[in-house]
């Protein structure tokens, strides 16, 4: 075993470091600590996201893992992990979680040549921004039960139905959509995937406000929306298999722990400089223990993320499905522990949001609220645990 980065990897890391350190100086205050809130809640945040996407596109870093013929350098997943760690540490936006994180890998697996040539370059340049049209009001964890229809009409499909929990639907210019193309089908058979523009006639986007009143999620209504046939990705009625591939790309981020290490350092700085009852918070044994626990989580979580990426690189993405689910569960529930501990340590100040009095600019108060969503989105942690049990432990799956 060897955990050392190669000289080339070290050099790459430094290049990423230099870039993000410099560019993150341009972040507006509205962007906060980033994440979906930083990117989607305010116009300023989203503009900064777009600015960074463009910059990353110029560097060629959005498409690094892709095959050469589509503008990539076929960078191994370990290099992607290094990129994600550095970007995570700097809390940097610019990598569209849906376009770059999910749809591009789907295109590479399932699109035809014409679609790859047409759809990948704008993604690589950081010019196309996507949202994900999968969940519906009655199809969440049970995604295969979705009812939005796509009915063939000449060389178009006509879409009707409702998508829900669409993160950034009000900001994105594109969506990748999962809809039922075979009306007589049930469950996962008879679904197809589509690429579409959000300004097509018949699309209506309406906000679902988060508990902190921030605007991140949407309902998206489709009434007779016409999507050209050439924007169906993969064969008709074969969309489900594409979602499986996509989901594996999505769940292995290591950036969470790099970001968390920085946040934890800020918490440590806070407790070392804040006095209560005549003593620094850092002298309180309960505070010390909470911080030690968080540190341990960042260390072991990072080791798990490396393992996940290593497995993905060695055995392919499907092989590592269980490890990826473990990373998702651990990363999100760790973020929740961090939010809980931090706001507990802060005492009364832990409840303050954007205020001059708020410790750490209120980011922990934001995380306290946002972390609940993290446990649910991108495959709820219950579904992830099912997967760990089925795939990782080979436990029986009742139908």
């Amino acid at each position: 075993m060897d955990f050392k980065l190669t000289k080339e990897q070290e050099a790459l890391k430094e290049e990423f470091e230099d870039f993000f350190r410099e560019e993150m100086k341009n972040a507006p205050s509205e962007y906060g600590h980033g994440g979906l809130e930083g990117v989607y809640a305010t116009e300023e945040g989203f503009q900064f996201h777009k600015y960074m996407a463009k910059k990353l596109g110029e560097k060629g870093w959005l498409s690094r893992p892709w095959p050469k013929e589509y503008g990539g350098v076929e960078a191994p997943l370990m290099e992607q992990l290094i990129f994600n760690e550095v970007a995570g540490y700097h809390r940097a936006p610019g990598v569209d979680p849906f376009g770059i994180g999910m749809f591009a890998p789907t295109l590479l697996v399932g699109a035809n040549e014409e679609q790859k040539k047409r759809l990948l370059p704008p993604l690589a340049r950081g010019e196309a921004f996507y949202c994900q049209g999968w969940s519906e009001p009655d199809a969440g964890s049970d995604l295969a039960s979705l009812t939005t229809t796509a009915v063939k009409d000449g060389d178009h499909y006509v879409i009707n139905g409702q998508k829900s929990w669409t993160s950034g639907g009000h900001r994105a210019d594109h969506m990748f959509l999962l809809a039922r193309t075979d009306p007589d089908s049930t469950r996962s058979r008879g679904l197809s995937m589509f690429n579409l523009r959000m300004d097509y006639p018949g699309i209506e986007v309406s906000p679902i406000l988060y508990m902190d009143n921030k605007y991140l999620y949407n309902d998206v209504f489709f009434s007779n929306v016409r999507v050209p046939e050439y924007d169906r990705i993969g064969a008709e009625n074969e969309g489900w298999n594409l979602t499986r591939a996509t989901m594996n790309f999505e769940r292995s981020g290591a950036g969470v722990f790099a970001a968390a290490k920085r946040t934890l350092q800020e918490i440590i700085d806070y407790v070392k400089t804040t006095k209560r009852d005549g003593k620094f918070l850092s002298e309180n044994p309960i505070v010390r223990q909470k911080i030690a626990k968080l540190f341990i989580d960042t260390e072991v979580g990072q080791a798990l993320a490396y393992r996940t990426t290593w497995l993905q690189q060695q055995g392919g993405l499907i092989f590592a499905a269980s490890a990826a689910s473990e990373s998702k569960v651990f990363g999100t529930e760790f973020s929740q522990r961090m939010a809980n501990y931090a706001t507990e340590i802060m005492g009364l100040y832990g409840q303050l949001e954007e205020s001059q009095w708020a410790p750490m600019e209120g980011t922990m108060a934001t995380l306290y609220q946002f972390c609940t969503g993290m446990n649910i989105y991108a495959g709820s942690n219950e579904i992830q645990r099912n997967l760990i049990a089925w795939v990782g432990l080979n436990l029986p799956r009742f139908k």
Partner: protein
Amino acid sequence: MNLDFTKDQDMIRKSVAEFIAKECPYEQVKELEESDAGYSSELWKKMAELGWMQIHFPEEYGGLGDPFMDLMIIIEEMGKAAFPSPFFSTVIQSGLTILEGGSEDQKKELLPKIGNGELIMALAQYEEEASYLPSGINMPAQLTADHYVLNGTKMFVTDANIADKLIVAAKTHDAGITLFLVDAKDPGITCTKMPTIGMDNTCEVIFKEVKVPKHDVIGVPGEGWEILEKISQKATVAKCAEMLGGCKVSIDMTSDYAKKRVQYGKPIGGFQAIQHYMANMQLAYDTSVNYFYKVVWMIDEGMDISQEVSTLKAQVNEAYKFITERGIQIHGGVGTTREFNIALFYRRAKSAEYVLGDTDHHYEKVAQSLGM
């Protein structure tokens, strides 16, 4: 970067697993637990023949000079078997102490004997107060003309009842904490086994006017704590290897049981409540074990692991208890019996938790390492 084992390491793992499966099934583990000696001298000899004890010692002391990782693989597999033997006290705690702090003569004399299974040793550190810190070592070592005289009581000394020699941490009047090599059969020594959850060889050892020649000091007088601390890092990691072996086998046996046990006409492993317990157990294991390999790699690279070792032990302490406790819950009533093996590991998790620092001790060390 390469996170796979070498082919040789895979082979070591396989051969250790095969040997243990054949030679020491769980029924025998439980019999040994109930015996006075707490181990099988016959098996101990066979292990020595296979080279397990000498694998990490340098070649000049009769060892094979293999990396720490190889040794950890052996211990992981022994952990899976809950294998009762004085391996940890002899090879790890005592062997590494001699290797680190011993004189050339001591190394040449003792390490080959440990390596070939002739010598069993134990480390006597803790006292009545049961502190992990240097302030907990207060047993006096009085210097006379040509020897030291030890008087006092050492507690929680593992394998003292079967040891040929002890390493005793005591305090000299002028130099402070010093390590002494003591003949365990000295008439001034009284050793009593203490009944523990782990049913292991935990002993109370009383020293009455025990004379130790000056040349049986390990290192120089006053250097004792420094050596102990250095060794305790590697030893803690080695204990974690054993614990992680226990975690892994506990998950495996629980998963097997959940697939076989039928209720409501179905194997209980198909029920979500059970599946989510199992997923949490697997997660606790995978986070721990991957970090563990990283720390072992750091040791082989000669890196400083003072922060990592506490991080690891605190993590593994909690993971082991969690996994084995849920393991019993999933087994249901039979999980609580002497007959079923999951409880064996539940008990081992408790005894291992205390070895070289409990969770609270290591949380505090992590906090200190973060500058608090």
